[in-house]
């Protein structure tokens, strides 16, 4: 797959990345330190610029660090999907690269898990975070306008 683009189609300048120091409502540095205990810091200014390949050890560790609880251990025959779809999804999940981060909002003890590779760029990341935390997010654009989502 292509390299992880740090800003989607247009490419965004560094000044548009979310910086927890200017936006008290949303903090991502804490997530970085909490998940970084066993591996190197992810440098959570979200401007990752990582080149992703299946052989990347970062990803191998990342995929194991925050496991999702698979429901199929509880009910192997629910939801009702056919075996072909089931195995296609399993095969796809094994191949799919993931980059999970945990995002904490200040004042909320429970963090939310997020797979960054499922997003197309900063816009969809912001939309996702708004949706997850049910909160408006403000950020500075290159042109120094504040946008309220």
């Amino acid at each position, binding site marked *: 797959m*292509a390299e992880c683009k740090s800003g989607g189609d247009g490419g965004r300048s560094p000044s548009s990345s979310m910086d927890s120091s200017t936006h008290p409502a949303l903090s991502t540095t804490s997530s970085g330190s909490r998940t970084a205990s066993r591996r190197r810091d992810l440098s959570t200014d979200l401007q990752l610029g990582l080149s992703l390949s299946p052989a990347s050890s970062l990803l191998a560790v990342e995929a194991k660090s925050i496991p999702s*609880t698979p429901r199929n251990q509880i009910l192997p025959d*629910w939801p009702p*999907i*056919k075996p072909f779809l089931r195995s*296609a999804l399993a095969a*796809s999940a094994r191949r*799919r690269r993931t980059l999970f981060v945990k995002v904490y909002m200040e004042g909320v003890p429970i963090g939310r898990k997020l797979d960054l590779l499922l997003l197309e760029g900063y816009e969809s990341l912001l939309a996702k975070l708004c949706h997850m935390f049910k909160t408006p997010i403000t950020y500075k654009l290159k042109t120094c306008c504040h946008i309220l989502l």
Partner: protein
Amino acid sequence: MGRGGSHAAPAAASPPWHALPDEVWEHAFSFLPADSDRGAAAAACRSWLRAERRSRRRLVIANCYAASPQDAVDRFPSVRAVEVKGKPHFADFGLVPPGWGAAAAPWVAAAADGWPLLEELSFKRMYVTDDCLEMIAASFRNFQVLRLVSCEGFSTSGLAAIAAGCRNVRELDLQENEIEDCSIHWLSLFPESFTSLVTLNFSCLEGDVDITVLERLVTRCRNLKTLKLNNAIPLDKLASLLRKAPQIVELGTGRFSADYHLDLFSKLAAAFAGCKSLRRLSGAWDAVPEYLPAFYCVCEGLTSLNLSYATVRGPELVKFISRCKNLQLLWVMDLIEDHGLAAVASSCNKLQELRVFPSAPFDAAEQVSLTERGLVDVSASCPMLESVLYFCRRMTNEALITIAKNRPNFTCFRLCIIEPHTPDYITHQPLDAGFSAIVESCKGLRRLSVSGLLTDRVFRSIGAHADRLEMLSIAFAGNSDLGLHYILSGCKSLKKLEIRDCPFGDKPLLANAAKLETMRSLWMSSCSLTLGACRQLARKMPRLSVEVMNDPRRACPLDSLTDESHVETLYVYRTIAGPRSDTPACVQIV
């Protein structure tokens, strides 16, 4: 053979209608579209029975245990096309124990003997062996169509027998079967002189296929209209195959490369540009969004798009589907999300069938933004939408009521809320009101699957209003016996009822025993049934076959259990063939 009397009274210009020769009735019956109409005609009188059964060409045995193969051959001696269905629908989800039955062998044997002119054979959810396939190849000199859907028990050796032995085969359609790979190059067994293939579907095959042989086959079969490849065919080979078969109408692509290459993209785009007749597209496993524009030139003509295995997401996916303005059928993953469905709603106004499958059904957390909104939008903007299968994680009564109001023309409505017992996420009420609105509004509803938090109230509505409902699927719903009683005492047209994990017990089953003979089958698993009630039901209704199944891993044989013991799975069906003799140890006919 009846003959009109020429010595009728002078006033009658033609024979009285009831003395018309059989050929006239046979010709008349050929205009009856539905087998049930033909069956009704056959029940009218002896001469109609004779005429109808001798002229029947197509036969569907919806339950292979409802009649014996010999019954079918004796009654309908001139059949040319047969379809036989075996295991119950819940077998698709692993609820039927292995070795349960539904062997195709007795049917193939009876057909070989009684229908030597058979041209088409179709098996669904049955156990088909290589011996069966060899017998088919050897027994029917004019065999043309073989369709195997959700079957198992055979390998590529059996396919080799078909390829080598069936001179005139037109269609080889393998849908979602478990096929053992014997590393035999079955495709190369089609003779060089063989050119009659119209449909070739091997999408479910796991193993490799000789591409050169496939290319030669495709090149010489000029009438090939449907080609569905398997996962072993890479993208560059797809392009060359398409160049050899530009007349293709239905295509299942092979594996998409995970890496984008510009030259491959150009080859693909050029190949698709040559396919002016392409109407139906499927496959696209592991498709990456960058390749989707290669399909752009065929979008306008597409009527059917099956992306249910394509884990592709993002704006490219939506752009691609939005270009398919003439789409009638769309199967897609929930990766399309609500905003994607909104785009579909505004672009694809001719949509008739929508299926949305879950990309992460086993994750507890919501990774994908697909909610009730998507379905509401599509139902509002697509006036011809009549069939829906929708997997999602949340729903509201209001959304269902809106959908019901927008689309009273639904014939099939299947909603699966992934987490059992999920209530309306805004009001936290059961979804009774929503589903009631669906059955009240959609008077032509033939198939319904309900989910989410539901009480007995919804079943009262379904029983009272769903007059045309033929198939109903219920899981994790209801709160008492009343729920099942409402269904069995209502639902005038009910043919198939399948229930799992509901608190339904013996009473409604026994109280409505007679209803079961008007239905094709009833499946109940993980409910509150006792063995005694099943035994009672069997005694009361001799023309029903009452099968009780327990976990095959359990040591305790069913014979030794008392009346009070809990029954894990009950499968009841009407039959004229009596109890079957091929049950495995974990199944007992009571």
